[in-house]
């Protein structure tokens, strides 16, 4: 039987997290009232002209550098012409002939070792609006809030061979982009959208087979299923002696199959030509160097360094670096109070749980390195026990409280008052003669009961080691 391999290249559209749109001053905020963020420019009114947002160029250059691309020093914009109601000018300003970055490479590790994916190019473009269909009234409305939101499109070479590699590549991309603050890469909000180019060929064949393009994927799970489903569909056709058609398809995740949208012959002619309303962007070396210096340390480097600098495990380093916010919080806190294992435990276990339970993103945490280091200090000095510390931590994450103030206000501090403890301990011993005698007979478990009773009487605020000592003395 013949064996086949799947060949995959991706086109990834990423919405940039600039405050304003690419060609006007309108806000990019998500979830506003329809058409609240619009002006003559992003509405395509007659005579309005685009003015390029420099931040977009910054972000695109940084991304290009992070992906080891060559920056095109004289890049230009082009018009992609087509009619659709969500596209107010009836052309999209994009880059075809001189994209801002070319020929890059991104490397990540997989179970089978390092994998390197070529980047064909990276270009800047504007997003379109959104159509809202009202089936009751039989009308279609258009919301232009998204019209003119900046995008970069990252086009890979056909270097991926499996869904696993695709997901790993996307993970790596979105981690890098979020680390740079270029995009939040939220697939569910549409700030990262993926087109998959997929073909199959006999193992050992070096030519590329006919490909299909699956448009607009917006979840990792669907991407995985689409690749597996589409590659199986193609292999089945080849086994039956059929031919793969060069066409655009759509993945129906409910039916778990891809559906044909249009063939190559039906593909639109976009009549690309140079945009004359925007002067070519000249990018001097100084600009590139400056942005190069500003590139952050990315996740893979951080994972290695955290193990070395803070003596934590690879697993811990991986979890902590899953977002830049958490990684920075860990590192900045550890610098303020040198107890990295404690910081790491709290962030990894409690922090991750709090995020999950409250559906939050790391940037939503109201924790600061200063407040967290205070809490770590309090734990370290035995001023608060771990259970209470967890509760304080949660309040810090969600409400931004100061741990000392909070502890004092709610009386959570550990009571180290020897006299008071002795009085309470005596009372416990009197009330539990059975346990005392059991302990004296050598049943260590009974001692645990006594400690528990004492702690309970102290509302959990006593220092457990001090309780231990006092009880032993008294018995």
């Amino acid at each position, binding site marked *: 039987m013949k064996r086949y391999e799947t060949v995959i290249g991706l086109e990834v559209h990423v919405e940039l997290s600039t405050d304003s749109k690419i060609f006007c001053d309108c806000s990019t905020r998500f979830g506003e009232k329809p058409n609240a963020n619009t002006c003559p420019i992003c509405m395509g009114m*007659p*005579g309005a002209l685009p*003015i390029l947002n420099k931040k977009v160029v910054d972000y695109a250059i940084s991304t290009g550098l992070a992906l080891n691309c060559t920056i095109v020093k004289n890049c230009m914009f082009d018009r992609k012409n087509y009619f659709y*109601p969500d596209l107010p000018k009836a*052309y999209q300003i994009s880059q075809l002939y001189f994209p801002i970055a070319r020929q890059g490479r991104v490397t990540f590790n997989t179970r089978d070792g390092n994998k390197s994916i070529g980047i064909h190019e990276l270009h800047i473009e504007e997003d379109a609006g959104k159509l809202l269909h009202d089936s009751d009234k039989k009308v279609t409305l258009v919301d232009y809030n998204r019209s003119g939101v900046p995008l970069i499109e990252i086009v890979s070479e056909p270097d991926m061979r499996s869904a696993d590699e695709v997901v790993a590549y996307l993970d790596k991309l979105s981690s890098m982009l979020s680390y740079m603050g270029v995009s939040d890469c939220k697939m569910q909000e549409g700030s990262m959208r993926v087109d998959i180019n997929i073909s199959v060929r006999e193992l050992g064949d070096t030519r590329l087979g006919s490909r299909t393009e699956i448009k607009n994927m917006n979840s990792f799970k669907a991407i995985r299923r689409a690749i597996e489903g589409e590659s199986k569909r193609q292999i089945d056709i080849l086994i039956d002696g059929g031919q793969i058609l060069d066409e655009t398809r759509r993945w129906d995740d409910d039916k778990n199959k891809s559906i044909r949208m249009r063939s190559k012959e039906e593909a639109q002619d*976009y*009549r690309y030509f140079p945009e*004359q309303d*925007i002067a070519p962007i000249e990018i001097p070396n100084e600009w590139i160097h400056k942005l190069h210096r500003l590139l952050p340390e990315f996740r893979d480097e951080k994972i290695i360094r955290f193990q070395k600098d803070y003596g934590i495990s690879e697993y811990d380093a991986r979890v902590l670096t899953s977002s830049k916010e958490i990684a920075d919080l860990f590192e900045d806190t550890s610098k303020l109070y040198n107890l990295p294992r404690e910081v790491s435990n709290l962030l990894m276990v409690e922090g991750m749980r709090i995020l999950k339970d409250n559906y939050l993103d790391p940037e939503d945490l109201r924790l600061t390195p200063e407040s967290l280091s205070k809490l770590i200090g309090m734990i370290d000095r035995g001023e608060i026990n771990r259970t209470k510390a967890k509760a304080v931590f949660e309040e810090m994450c969600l409400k931004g409280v100061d741990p000392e103030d909070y502890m004092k206000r709610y009386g959570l501090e550990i009571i180290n008052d020897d006299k008071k403890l002795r009085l309470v301990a005596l009372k416990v011993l009197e009330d539990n003669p059975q346990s005392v005698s059991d302990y004296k007979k050598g049943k260590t478990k009974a001692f645990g009961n006594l400690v528990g009773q004492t702690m309970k009487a102290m509302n959990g605020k006593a220092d457990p080691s001090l309780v231990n000592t006092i009880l032993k003395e008294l018995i």
Partner: protein
Amino acid sequence: MKEVTRMSALTLARKIKNRELSVEEVTEAQLQVIKEREPIYNSYITITENEAKEQAKAVQRQIDDGEFKNSPLAGVPVAIKDNICTKGVKTTCASKMLADFIPSYNATVTERLRDAGAILIGKVNLDEFAMGGTTKTSYFGPSKNPWNPDYTPGGSSGGSSAAVAAEEAFVSLGSDTGGSIRQPAAYCGLVGFKPTYGTVSRYGLIPLASSLDQIGPLGRNISDCVSVLEAISGYDPKDSTVVKQEKYAYSQALVDDVSNMRIGIPKLYLDEDLNEDIRSCFMGALKTFEDMGAKLEIFDINEIMYSLQAYYVISCAEASSNLSRYDGVRYGHRTADYDSLDELYKNSRGEGFGYEVKRRIMLGAYMISSGNYETYYNKARRIRSAISRAYEKAFDKYDVLLSPESLNTAPLLSSDSSQTHKKHKSEMLNCSVNLAGLPAVSIPCGKDRKGLPIGLQLIGNKFGEKNIIQAAYSFEQTKPYERPKVR
């Protein structure tokens, strides 16, 4: 009061400053003249009577408060071509497509004229979307030449030229993509100034071809035009194709001196089958310059032979894309007859655009479609670069180039203007200037045997406005403004 409207813009503004005239009475007089003459000339699409009167009141108050001391245009009624956006005032492009379009924003030039205290008296006619040279493609009917209403005032800025020549405005704004300011100015015996590409902001100019369009003034003398140019030119954060430069004081170049000025005359233009009247006027103009001490030389610049072809490809390609946004979805004409999105597009555009507009959109779309891009569009761009280089070389040797503005005087409105060979040759003179992005001015230099004005074109190097202003001003001293016998 009618004599008021015969003055030059600068004379009028001086009299307003000296309290010899009030802005309100000037505005009133201007509106009166417009009302009387519009039935003949049809220069205007919209007359902004109420807005003008209100603005006149406000400007007079400001003048009384001591403002506008340095503005030579305060209180001067101006007309604006109807493809330049005016907030709250219809801006139609002389098309059914935008017949009811009211912009919510001003073009930068509109804003700047207002800031200078000029009174916006109305919006003037043009060929539909500035495509043409006669105003005959206007949805609102053609304008008439004040020298003889049987003839065209030229185009596309034909309303701009008719209005100023008929004294229905003191100065006007036009737009020039391939001669659309200079040719109507020549046909109506006016001065028409097309600045260097990147001098005047295009924000709010409804584009024909983005890489060629430039806004400029039409007036009855070079000084009036220069004062408008000074008001509207300069850096604009809303248009990234405007070149950042020190604001140039153009009026400093209003000097009567061309001694030792190096003037080149492209041989090509002399070889053309110029009509006899134009040839003799042109030769007369050359002699005038020679007599004034300029150094004249005939030279070869054959690259511009191909400028018309390159111009058509580039301007139609850009227009096809620029005019795509008129789809009936958000504004403009929407068909009543549709059952699908495709029909909405097809019928709205089919009904909203006239023949010439559709012709150019189709040509343009064809020339940038895949497979044709290299053959037509890129080849045209290479020709364009060659033309630019040829002009650059010429300006190493000369300060100013001279040519006839047109190979003919204004044609009859009744004549079939569709693509005569001669008309195309005539456009070649003009559009090479746009392809190279150069400044050029057309000034009156005589009349033909029918009594129609003849224009002389002065072309300058990029941002060399100063040279052509000085040459035009010097020439004007020998030929004072001649007005048509209106009515």
